[in-house]
């Protein structure tokens, strides 16, 4: 990959292509950076940049909360900061869904809201996975911890047909941390928070997708339970499922030393 890619926020495999949302350094001048799609053919390793989204918040380096998933109709889902608000010394961002079609190099976006018509304002959205026409994603408000405020973390469900969201899981305190991973396999979703907040680490969570799919919007019952797996001992990792195992890759530990590839336990 080119050295002006200074970070890769997410990757989605579409056929034999990997579509990366890459943070690109300041070949655009003024020390700013942008997020642009970078498409790699996995068979030939040939690659090219797609277009950046014009007039978007991606023109800044407010670079968290990007995640992607794949859907046959609309290839990529891409959360990003929208309108920025500042409240009590902490910044929260209105979340939109951004869609990128690598076939046509075209961007779309839409606003999302809950059943009450409230837009989603959170500090970070750091992991996302698709289950049919729903997206499961995590959100948390982290900046408050800097100022001693209480923190909250959520798992949310977004209906892609209506662009409405509801809450699947909510917990006061702590955060999930960027680098957390949401994985969907069959009738279960596995969420691996990173260990960013060691003093209040989150255990891996499992979501019963059968129960969740049967839940009406806004009426989600208890579908989340703790996984029988240890807290992952690193920060900023990636993960995916190969066969019956979850493989966790990365990330930095306390000294930001070289990373490990770690194999997790078998799925049930």
């Amino acid at each position, binding site marked *: *990959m*080119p*050295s*002006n*890619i200074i*970070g*890769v926020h*997410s*990757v*989605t*495999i579409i056929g*034999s292509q*990997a579509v*990366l949302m890459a*943070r690109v*350094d300041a070949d655009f001048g003024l*020390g700013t950076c942008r997020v642009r799609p970078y498409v*790699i053919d*996995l068979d030939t*390793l040939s690659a090219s940049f797609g277009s950046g989204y014009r007039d978007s918040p991606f023109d800044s380096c407010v*670079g*968290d909360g990007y995640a992607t998933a794949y859907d046959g109709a609309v290839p990529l889902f891409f959360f990003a900061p929208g309108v920025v608000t500042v409240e009590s010394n902490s910044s929260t961002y209105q979340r939109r869904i951004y869609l990128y079609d690598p076939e046509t190099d075209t961007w779309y976006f839409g606003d999302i809201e809950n059943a009450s018509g409230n837009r989603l304002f959170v500090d970070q959205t750091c992991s996302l996975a698709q289950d049919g026409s729903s997206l499961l994603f995590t959100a948390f408000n*982290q900046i408050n*911890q*800097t100022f001693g405020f209480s923190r909250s973390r959520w798992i949310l469900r977004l209906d892609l047909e209506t662009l409405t969201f509801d809450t699947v899981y909510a917990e006061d305190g702590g955060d999930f*941390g*960027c*680098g957390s*991973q949401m994985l969907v396999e069959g009738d279960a979703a596995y969420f691996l928070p990173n*260990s*960013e*907040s*060691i*003093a209040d680490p989150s255990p891996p969570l499992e979501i019963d997708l059968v129960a969740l799919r049967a839940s009406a919007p806004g009426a989600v019952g208890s579908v989340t339970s703790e996984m029988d797996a*240890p*807290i992952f*001992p690193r*920060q*900023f*990792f*990636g993960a*995916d499922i*190969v*066969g019956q195992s979850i*493989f*966790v*890759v*990365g*990330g*930095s*530990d*306390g000294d*930001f030393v*070289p*990373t*490990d*590839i*770690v*194999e*997790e336990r078998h799925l049930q």
Partner: protein
Amino acid sequence: MELLETSLTPPAGVDFDTGWSFAPRLPDALYNVQAALPVAEYDGELWVFGGADEDFTSATTSAERYERDVYVFNPSTES
């Protein structure tokens, strides 16, 4: 990305490595990874797509930046 203040000292009696099996380390080129490592399964292999450089804002030449290589890990042939 704004980083959080963290304490990486586990609580007494807690070993975060317990319960995990570890495979070979990634190459040193991924040193200083400070963002999520994008990982995706493709054809039974794990593909790892580079990382992020924590010091990119102070880098003035391309030589100071890190390469963003693509790594492939095959769990069926490597241990």
